[in-house]
């Protein structure tokens, strides 16, 4: 693909003068995208930054503010005396992300390795890939509702527990550990297939002769996996990890539906975006919501820069390889 890409862009350069007169069409074709981006993404973002500096909230039926307060909202959001300060919310979000991501990356690596292993020659790969990717397309809120129904105090799992042990129902949603576990489990189920496919594509890109050379040199299959495969797919691993982290910071649907927006028990499963949703929708505290958005934006922008450099490095690598020939 990279070679074709270069082949495609070379004539563009060569005929620069010839197509110069068409350049106004470039602007015309870009216009809808640019306008919509400015109106629906850039402008709201600027407004969000603006609100973060103001005291502006609804108290009862009347609005307080907007009154310029500088960085007061940012100070307030770090207030440790409140239950929903940003450190607690970030901690909740990250714990649930890690609990889902660690098994996800391990299983995905293992499956991608098995699927691409020439020696193993597994069959029915199409079937396994299809089934494992499916949960990724499921409506997260409906999936969370389904899991809630199945694991609720009167749901089938508790019926089974009561039936086999003869004891009490286990109230999954009354404990932090089991609630977080359920959220992490759902995230795992929804994303491991997707990660497997991405890692598979990366592993299939490894030159067969490298592995063969290692085999001839007497490397064991575990050595080949740890020393060669893993180090060759490191860029994709980094990419998967960072995009997953960005996705993890946005975690909303699953814990929102599972705990009915409460982050129960005791705000221990309330994520950053759940709090943001609460501040915009129900509490109407725009100043606080703005400050939180700005912080999430800065973190995500920093992470996006890493992804961007990953792409940029990837492209220039391919170009220099082509140029070297």
């Amino acid at each position, binding site marked *: 693909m990279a070679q074709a890409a270069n082949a495609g862009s070379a004539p563009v350069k060569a*005929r620069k003068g010839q197509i110069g007169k068409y350049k106004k069409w470039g602007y015309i074709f870009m216009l809808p995208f640019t306008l919509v981006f400015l109106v629906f993404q850039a402008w709201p973002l600027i407004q969000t930054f603006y*609100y973060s500096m103001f005291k502006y909230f609804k108290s009862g039926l009347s609005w307080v503010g907007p009154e310029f307060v500088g960085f007061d909202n940012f100070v307030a959001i770090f207030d440790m005396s409140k239950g929903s300060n940003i450190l607690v919310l970030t901690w909740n979000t990250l714990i649930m992300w890690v609990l889902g991501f660690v098994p996800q990356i391990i299983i995905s690596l293992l499956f991608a390795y098995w699927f691409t292993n020439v020696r193993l020659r597994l069959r029915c790969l199409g079937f396994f890939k299809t089934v494992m990717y499916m949960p990724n397309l499921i*409506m997260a809120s409906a999936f969370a509702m389904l899991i809630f129904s*199945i694991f609720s105090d009167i749901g089938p799992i508790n019926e089974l527990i009561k039936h086999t042990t003869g004891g009490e129902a286990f109230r999954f949603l009354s404990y932090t550990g089991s609630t977080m576990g359920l959220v992490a489990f759902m995230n795992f*189920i929804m994303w491991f297939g997707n990660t497997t496919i991405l890692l598979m594509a990366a592993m299939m890109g490894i030159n067969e002769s490298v592995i063969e050379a290692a085999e001839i040199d007497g490397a064991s299959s575990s050595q080949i996996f740890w020393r060669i495969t893993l180090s060759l797919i490191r860029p994709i691993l980094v990419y998967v990890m960072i995009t997953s982290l960005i996705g993890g910071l946005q975690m909303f649907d699953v814990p929102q539906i599972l705990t009915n927006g409460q982050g129960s028990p005791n705000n221990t499963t309330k994520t950053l975006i759940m709090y*943001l949703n609460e501040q915009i929708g129900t509490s109407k505290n725009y100043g606080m919501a703005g400050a939180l958005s700005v912080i999430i934006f800065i973190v995500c922008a920093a992470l*996006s820069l890493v992804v961007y450099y990953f792409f940029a490095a990837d492209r220039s690598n391919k170009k220099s390889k082509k140029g070297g020939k």
Partner: protein
Amino acid sequence: MAKKEKVLEHTSALQQNRTDPDMKVKPTLIIHRIICYIVLVFFSILCLFFFYILLVNASRSHYDIMSGFSFLPGNQFINNFQSAISNTTIPVVNGVINSLIIATCTAVLSIYFSAMTAYAIHVYDFKGKKFIFNFILLIMTIPTQVSALGFFSMCTDWGLRDTYIPLIVPAIAAPAVFFFMIQYMKSSLPIDIIEAARIDGSGEFRTFNTIVLPMLKPALAVQAIFSFVASWNNYFLPALIIDTSTKKTMPIMIAQLRSADFLKFDMGQVYMFIFIAIIPVIIVYFCLSKFIIAGVSLGGVKE
């Protein structure tokens, strides 16, 4: 010397492995394969298990569901379906129609205009083109939630609350679709074809619509599916924007189901609601799965 022999032995073993796959396979390899299949089957079952329970419980009556667990479907499917669609507190038929309208419009707009933008960057040479390309690449992974506050207050100011405009129109600027399309164009849209069309007297706009778009069909289809599904499943923004109950989309109705007093509900109906929300996507997926999975591994970029 010994080492050399060992190497030779090893290479011949490798060759053997390749030439006759089933005749002389090492027993360890067979064990390894069996372990692989067991683990893979286990995870496949794990993926399907909950949806199977969904199917089973959607076809059982409330009384049956409450009286115990079952692995066999019941015969109340039609009944549950009828009571679900006639429920007045949660107008599920409206929900499906609304979601379909929004998701279809979103998919069409996002692929058409993002492909158009990608075409502009790919084919034309103009000032700032590189900057724009890099900028779009940079914002691709920034979540839309961070600007939700400004978006929400803007919609309130402009009277766009409770309409579908803020849910549909922003799809025109879809960075991920743009990126996928430009990658695809680089690999399979030769500039010569556009030049040829120009010589034949085709206008730029017509060239894009009648010559370029048909060539992009496979990529457009994959991205249309992803956009459709993302919009169908979207909960965060619609929940903030839509207030009227008949305008609500499926995910909001599912959330309503969760916040309603759970025990009052007919459980058969609850499972049927979830079934209606999930199944259309699963059906589309199983029809087009080959396509979709190829798209995932090709794009590498998906929200």
